[in-house]
């Protein structure tokens, strides 16, 4: 226990001080900047957290570089965006019946009717309180669950089992996301194949480049992911706007300041709903591939079913707003559990956390991070310590800082953003497109990045139109190099046995489970 506390203390210290002992304000300021950006982005229809994370990552890398010291400021900003965006989405949902982010859709059901009754500010206060409560609970679960899970995995799983676990995760995502598990797993494997272009783990030089020299180093990672996630969403939304030109921003009645206060009585009455939804959101968030929208729906339904007046839901009930917001915000902390303990992203926000970690510094995510190596000082050598574990606790510290800012100034900032909700998507989306092209050009250094981002944008657009989940594709693309490394490692360690994956009982169980998941999910859909 003493060792754990020593690592925690070092992690907290590293979040505020440089290795030389000077106070380091940068990570804290970046968390605040990210949080405010995230709230503003969430409050702007057409933008969402992953959008903002995608666009800011190349900028952050250009500003801070890729040294170890850049990691905490970069991650601080991204964590701030992640936390802020889900809260910000409530602003247009409540004030204009337009969800700022997809997961705020359920907030419109009771939030907008409250605003129409002149209780818009109270709905925003409830949304903020519920959201931050859900987020905080979820973070606490993350801080406890991620290290425990990682230690268990590291003790039990060897190379073949870790490879099988990645396959199982991909199968799970394919089974739960989208309408067709078979199509989702196919597109996941396609993503893996694309990620293998140009890589040289085989030792025989670049592969699958079709003679195109520019592909020798592989497809630029950030450009590909920005294309399939951001550009495809811009395309779908632009098509939708161009075909359904309408503006229905209604004016709302002015509210009474007294009626719009959030009292202790309100908080007491809403607490069971908030806690229940936060628990649902945390469980959903911990499972890879299940999004915030489902968490919000489940939270809302649970609140309605347990209510004495279920018929009142949808007419402007504070419980409706609280249930939705607590659930969708609780996802953001818990979805880092698979990221921190396994190195496997469970949703789009987590994808950008992994991208940042892979691009900046030497820190890597995964079960080995939580190895509690004994700290020893050796003369003429230095300190023997698991530096990654210190960084992990620094990241947790940044999340706590984010929560403190969110509790204190997040609500005030949130309530001042009504004006952003009026920015038309028709104006915002082409601008996002332009910024995306510029950012990938700047980061990946040329027009090749632009062609890749456009090609992947079209691919993402087609997948969205066909209702095939994009997440397995992105995860496949992102995790393929690690899977290949594990498979090659396992193959070599087994002395070249092609059946090595099937000879480990745990790996075999994972593979059977992966197959069963796909079969049952496929049958269930039919």
């Amino acid at each position, binding site marked *: 226990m003493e060792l754990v506390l020593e690592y925690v203390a070092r992690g907290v210290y590293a979040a505020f001080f440089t290795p030389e002992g000077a106070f380091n304000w940068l990570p804290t300021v970046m968390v605040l900047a990210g949080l405010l950006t995230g709230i503003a982005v969430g409050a702007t229809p057409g933008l969402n957290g992953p959008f903002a994370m995608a666009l800011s990552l190349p*900028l952050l890398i*250009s*500003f801070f570089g890729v040294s170890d010291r850049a990691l905490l400021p970069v991650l601080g900003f991204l964590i701030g965006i992640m936390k802020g965006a889900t809260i910000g989405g409530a602003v247009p949902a409540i004030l204009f019946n337009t969800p700022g982010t997809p997961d705020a859709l359920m907030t419109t059901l009771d939030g907008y009717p409250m605003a129409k009754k002149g209780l818009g500010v109270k709905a925003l206060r409830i949304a903020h309180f519920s959201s931050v409560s859900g987020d905080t609970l979820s973070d606490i679960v993350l801080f406890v669950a991620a290290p425990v899970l990682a230690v268990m995995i590291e003790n039990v799983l060897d190379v073949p089992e870790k490879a099988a676990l990645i396959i199982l995760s991909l199968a799970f995502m394919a089974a739960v996301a989208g*309408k067709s598990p078979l199509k989702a797993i196919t597109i996941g494997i396609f993503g893996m194949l694309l990620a293998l272009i140009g890589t040289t783990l085989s030792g025989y030089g670049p592969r699958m480049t079709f003679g195109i020299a520019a592909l020798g180093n592989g497809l630029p990672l950030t450009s590909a992911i920005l294309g399939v996630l951001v550009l495809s969403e811009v*395309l779908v939304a*632009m*098509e*939708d*706007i*161009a*075909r*359904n*030109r309408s503006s229905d921003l209604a004016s709302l009645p002015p509210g009474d300041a007294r009626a719009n206060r959030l009292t202790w009585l309100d908080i007491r009455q809403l607490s069971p709903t908030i806690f229940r939804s936060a628990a649902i959101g945390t469980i959903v968030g911990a499972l890879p591939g299940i999004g915030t929208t489902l968490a919000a729906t489940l939270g809302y339904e649970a609140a309605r079913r347990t209510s004495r007046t279920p018929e009142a839901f949808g007419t402007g009930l504070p419980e409706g707003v609280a249930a939705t917001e607590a659930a969708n915000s609780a996802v953001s902390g818990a979805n880092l559990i698979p990221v921190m303990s396994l190195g496997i992203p469970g949703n789009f926000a987590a994808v950008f956390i992994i991208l940042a970690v892979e691009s900046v510094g030497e820190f890597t995510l995964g079960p080995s991070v939580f190895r509690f190596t004994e700290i020893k000082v050796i003369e003429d050598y230095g300190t023997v310590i698991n530096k990654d574990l210190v960084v992990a606790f620094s990241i947790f510290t940044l999340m706590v800082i984010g929560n403190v800012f969110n509790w204190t100034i997040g609500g005030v900032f949130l309530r001042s953003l009504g004006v952003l909700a009026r920015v*038309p998507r*028709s*104006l915002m*989306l*082409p*601008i996002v*497109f*332009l*910024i995306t*092209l*510029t950012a990938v*050009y*700047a*980061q990946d*250094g*040329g*027009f090749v990045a*632009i062609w890749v981002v*456009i090609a992947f944008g*079209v691919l993402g*657009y*087609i997948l969205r*139109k*066909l*209702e095939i989940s994009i997440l397995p594709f992105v995860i496949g693309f992102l995790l393929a190099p690690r899977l290949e490394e594990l498979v090659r490692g396992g193959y070599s360690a087994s002395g070249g046995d092609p059946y090595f994956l099937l000879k480990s009982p745990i790996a075999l169980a994972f593979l059977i489970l992966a197959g069963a998941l796909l079969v049952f999910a496929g049958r269930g859909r039919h």
Partner: protein
Amino acid sequence: MGAIGRLSADNFWFLFRFHIAILLGLAAMYGLGPAFVAVQNALTGGEVEYRQLADTVPYKYIGFVAGSLLMTLPTIAWAEGRWSARSAVTVLLVVLAIIVIFDVLLTNVQLPPNANV
């Protein structure tokens, strides 16, 4: 809107038109700076290449500004069903902000097309 769950000809028609605007914008981004220098050379009898001026104001911004406007303004007008001065001013301000961030504040990156000339 094209039917959800399948791709219709409408969807491909949308993709085609949208990318025409984008490709025109990218073509302007890539070619307008060198074209401007070529015209200037023809008028003044100079023999300077765009490559030599790619780090000089205003040459390094010509392609980027023109290309940005060309790819965003038509798509905004298409989505809104009308051209508006508000959109033009907003896009210009955004382009200015991008130049300040990517070219003035960040010294280790280049705006399109200057990494390719």
